[in-house]
C-alpha cells in the first residue's frame, strides 16, 4: 500500500515516471490514441447535435402538439427515445469510452493496445446506433425505456463495446506504471459493468423475454445501473484524474476516493424500483435501502472534491476545462441527492410520474456526465493533435451556454414536477388543469434546450476546426515530403 500512496495517489500521471519505470513518452501515447479517439470524439459530437435536434423537436411538441404530427416517424413517442438514445449511447457512452481509454493509457504510461480494433469497435458502435435510431423512427422500438434499440442493432453495439472494452483491459494489463490510480479502479469496473447489464437486459427482455412484471423490474434495474453506476464510474474517474491534474496538486484523499468506489458499486446498482410499483413489496424496500445508502459515496465524493478544490477557485475560473469538470462534480452531488430525496419523500407515489424525474435524469446524464466529458475532451483533443483549438473563445462560451441551458432545463422541470406532484395528489384538481400548469415550465425548458444546442454547435465547430488544422498540417508535411524529392531531383538536374 505504501508505494501506492507515494507514486500514483498524488499527482495522477505526473510527468516524471517513478524510479525504475520505463514510461513511454506522452507524445507517443497520444499518437497511439489519435485515430480511435478522433473517431469516437467526433462521432460523439455529431450524435450530440442529433440528440439536441430531436430533443428540441420533442420539446416543441409541448407547445404545439400539431408540430410535425402527421409524419408517423416524427411522432413524440419516437422522437423522444431517439433523443435519449443519441444522448446516452451516442454521446455519453462513446465519449466516456474514449476518455477512459486515454486515461488508462496515460496513467499506465503505455500505448493504447490495438488501436485498429478500437477504431473498428467504435465504427460498429456507431453503425449499430445508426441502425437502431432509424429503427426506432420506423416504429421498431422494443418498448423498454433506455433499451429501445432492437436486438439486431443492439448486437452490433454490444460487439463494438466488447472490442473497445477488451482493448481497454489489455492496455491496463500492459501498463508500465504498475500501481493503480483510483481512476483506473473506476474505469476497469465500468468496462466490465456494461456488457453484463446490457446482455442481461437484451437477452431477458428482447430475445428470450421473461413474463409479466419481471420485464419491468429488469428494465428498471438496467436503466438504474446504466445511468447511476456506469455513468457515475466513468464520470468520477475523469473527475478524480482531471481536477488534481489541472490544479497541479494532489487529490485530497486517495482512500476516500476508494471508499466512494466501494460504496458506489455496492449500493448504487440496487435502485430504480419505486415504492408503488406493482411488484412484491420486498423489491421496493431493497431498492429504497440501496438508494438511501448511496448518500455515503455521494458525501465521500463531495468531501474529496471540495477539499481538493479548496483555495483554488480562482484557478477553476481561469481554466475552462476545469470549469466544466467542477460543474459536473457539483451536478453529480445534486442529482444524487435529488434521487435519494425523490424516493424517500414521495409519500403518495406521484412524484415518479412527473417532470421531476426527467429533470433529475437530465442533471445526471447531462449536467454531470456530459459536462465532465466536455471538460475532458477539451483537454485531451489538443494533446492528441498537438494543436490548440482554433476558437478558444468558443470553449468558454460553450461552458456558459451549457451551464445556463442545464439550469433552464433542470430547475423549472424539477420545480414543475413538485407542483405537479402536489396537484396529482389532490383528485379535486382536474387532470387537464395539471397539464396546463406544466406548460410554462416546459416553455422555459425549451429555451434551455436551445442554449444547449447552440453550445453543441460551438463544440462541434471547435472539434471540426481542430481536425481541419491537424489534417491540413499533415497534408502540408506530406506535400513537403513529396515535393522535397521533386525539388531535389529538379535541383539536381541543372
Amino acid at each position, binding site marked *: *500500500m505504501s508505494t501506492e500512496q507515494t507514486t500514483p495517489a498524488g499527482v495522477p500521471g505526473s510527468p516524471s515516471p517513478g524510479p525504475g519505470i520505463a514510461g513511454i513518452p506522452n507524445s507517443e501515447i497520444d499518437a497511439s490514441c489519435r485515430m480511435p479517439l478522433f473517431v469516437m470524439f467526433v462521432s460523439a459530437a455529431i450524435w450530440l447535435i442529433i440528440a439536441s435536434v430531436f430533443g428540441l423537436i420533442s420539446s416543441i*411538441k*409541448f407547445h404545439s*402538439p*400539431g*408540430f410535425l*404530427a*402527421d*409524419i408517423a416517424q416524427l*411522432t413524440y*413517442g*419516437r422522437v*423522444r*427515445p431517439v433523443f435519449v438514445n443519441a444522448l446516452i449511447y451516442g454521446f455519453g457512452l462513446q465519449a466516456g469510452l474514449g476518455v477512459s481509454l486515454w486515461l488508462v493509457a496515460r496513467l499506465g504510461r503505455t500505448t493504447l493496445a490495438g488501436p485498429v480494433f478500437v477504431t473498428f469497435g467504435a465504427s460498429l458502435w456507431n453503425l449499430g446506433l445508426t441502425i437502431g435510431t432509424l429503427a426506432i423512427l420506423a416504429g*421498431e*422500438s*422494443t*418498448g*423498454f*425505456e433506455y433499451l429501445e434499440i432492437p436486438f439486431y442493432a443492439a448486437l452490433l453495439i454490444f460487439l463494438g463495446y466488447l472490442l473497445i472494452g477488451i482493448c481497454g483491459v489489455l492496455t491496463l494489463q500492459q501498463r508500465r506504471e504498475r500501481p*493503480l490510480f483510483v481512476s483506473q*479502479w473506476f474505469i*476497469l*469496473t465500468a468496462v466490465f*459493468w456494461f456488457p*453484463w*447489464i446490457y446482455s*442481461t437486459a437484451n437477452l431477458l*427482455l428482447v430475445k428470450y423475454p421473461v*413474463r*409479466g*412484471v419481471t*420485464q*419491468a*423490474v*429488469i428494465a428498471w434495474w438496467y436503466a438504474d*445501473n446504466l445511468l447511476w453506476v456506469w455513468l457515475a464510474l466513468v464520470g468520477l474517474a475523469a473527475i478524480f484524474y482531471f481536477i488534481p491534474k489541472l490544479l497541479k496538486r494532489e487529490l485530497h484523499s486517495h482512500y476516500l476516493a476508494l471508499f466512494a468506489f466501494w460504496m458506489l*458499486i455496492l449500493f448504487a*446498482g*440496487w435502485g430504480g*424500483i419505486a415504492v*408503488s410499483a*406493482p*411488484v*412484491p413489496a420486498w*423489491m421496493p424496500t*431493497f431498492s429504497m435501502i440501496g438508494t438511501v445508502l448511496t448518500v455515503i459515496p455521494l458525501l465521500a465524493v463531495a468531501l474529496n472534491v471540495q477539499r481538493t478544490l479548496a483555495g483554488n477557485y480562482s484557478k477553476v475560473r481561469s481554466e475552462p476545462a476545469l470549469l466544466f469538470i467542477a460543474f459536473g462534480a457539483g451536478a453529480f452531488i445534486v442529482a444524487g441527492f435529488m434521487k435519494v430525496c425523490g424516493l424517500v419523500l414521495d409519500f*403518495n407515489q406521484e412524484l*415518479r*410520474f*412527473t417532470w421531476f*424525474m426527467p429533470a433529475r435524469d437530465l442533471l445526471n446524464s447531462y449536467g454531470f456526465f456530459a459536462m465532465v466529458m466536455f471538460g475532458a475532451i477539451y483537454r485531451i483533443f489538443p494533446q492528441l493533435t498537438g494543436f490548440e483549438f482554433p476558437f478558444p473563445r468558443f470553449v468558454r462560451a460553450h461552458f456558459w451556454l451549457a451551464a445556463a441551458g442545464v439550469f433552464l432545463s433542470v430547475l423549472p422541470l424539477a420545480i414543475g414536477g413538485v407542483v405537479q406532484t402536489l396537484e*396529482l*395528489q*389532490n*383528485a379535486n384538481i*382536474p*387532470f*387537464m388543469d395539471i*397539464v396546463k400548469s406544466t406548460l410554462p415550465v416546459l416553455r422555459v425548458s425549451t429555451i434551455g434546450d436551445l442554449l444547449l444546442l447552440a453550445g453543441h454547435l460551438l463544440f462541434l465547430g471547435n472539434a471540426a476546426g481542430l481536425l481541419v488544422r491537424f489534417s491540413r498540417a499533415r497534408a502540408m508535411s506530406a506535400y513537403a515530403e513529396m515535393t522535397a524529392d521533386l525539388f531535389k531531383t529538379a535541383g539536381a538536374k541543372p
Partner: protein
Amino acid sequence: MNHGPLIFLAAFFALAGSWFSFVLTPQVQVGRLDQTNTVPAGATYPVSRPGLAREGLDVYRANGCAYCHSQQVGQTGVTCDVLLTAVGTNQPALLTALLKVKPALTDAEARRFLAELPKPVLEHVTKEAADAAAKALNSTGGKAQVWIVPMGPDIARGWGLRRSVAEDFLFDYPLMLGSQRIGPDLANAGVRLPDPKWHLLHLYAPRTQVKGSMMPPYRFLFEKRRIERVPSADALVLPPELAPESGFEVVPKPEAKALVGYLTSLRADAPLFDAPLTVAEAAVESSTNSVAGSVTNSASGTNAPVK
C-alpha cells in the same frame, strides 16, 4: 502491487449481488406467476387479450404511447363502506339499529333513508367499524353489506378501482408500465372510456374530445378516401372545420382500430386476493351508482372523488 484482480472480483461480486436480487430472484418469484382467480367470483384472471387488442399493443409500442401515459395505479389505503340493501321483516328494529349506527340522523330522516334503499349507511370507516355496524343491522333482519373501497388520488380520478398488482400484467409483452403522466393513466382506460368511436375521434383530433388536450393528433393512423357508392360505416363523424371535402371520408386504418381495441381492453377492476375490492354489481343492478361503482360510467377521466 497489482490490484487488478481485486478490482475485477469486487466489481464481479457487487454486480452479481445486484443481478441476483433484481434479475434472478424476481424471475423466480414473479416470472412464473400463474393465472389467479377473482375474489369472490372465482373467475380466471387475467385472460389474455383478444387478437385485435394484441395487435393494438404493437401500435402502442411502435408509437411510444408509454412515454406520456403510465399504466399502473397506486393506492394509499383501503376503507370500508356499509351498504344497506333491504329492510327485511322487522323495520322498527332496523330503524333503532340504524339510529344507533348513524346517530346524526333524526327519526324522520331515518325513515326516509329506509325508503330509498339501497343506500350507504357508513362511508370511509375502518374494517372493524364497518363489520360492527353491518352486524348490528343484519341482526335486525335487514340486509347490510360491507364494501371494501381502495383509496388514493389515482383511484379518485377513476384511473382504476384498485392498485395495480403483478398479476395484472401476466400476458403483456412488451410490458409498458410507463414512467410519465404527461397524459392520464391508462390502466383502466377500457372501463373509463368504453366507446371505440370516442377513441377514434380522440386519436384523429384530440381537442374535439378533450378540451385543451396536449396530445398530438395521430392522423397517420387514418386515411382520407373518396366515398365509393355508400359511405363506410367506419367513417369518422367530424365537426365541420375538420370534415373532409364532400365526396370524401376519413376512415381508420387497421392500426387505428387495433390501437382502440387495445385501449378498450385495458381494465383495472378485477377484485383479487392481493388487491381486495368489492365490485359494484348490486349497485349497478339497482341503478344507483353512488358507491364504489361510480367510476364505471365516467368518460372524462378527470372525475371528482365520490363523497
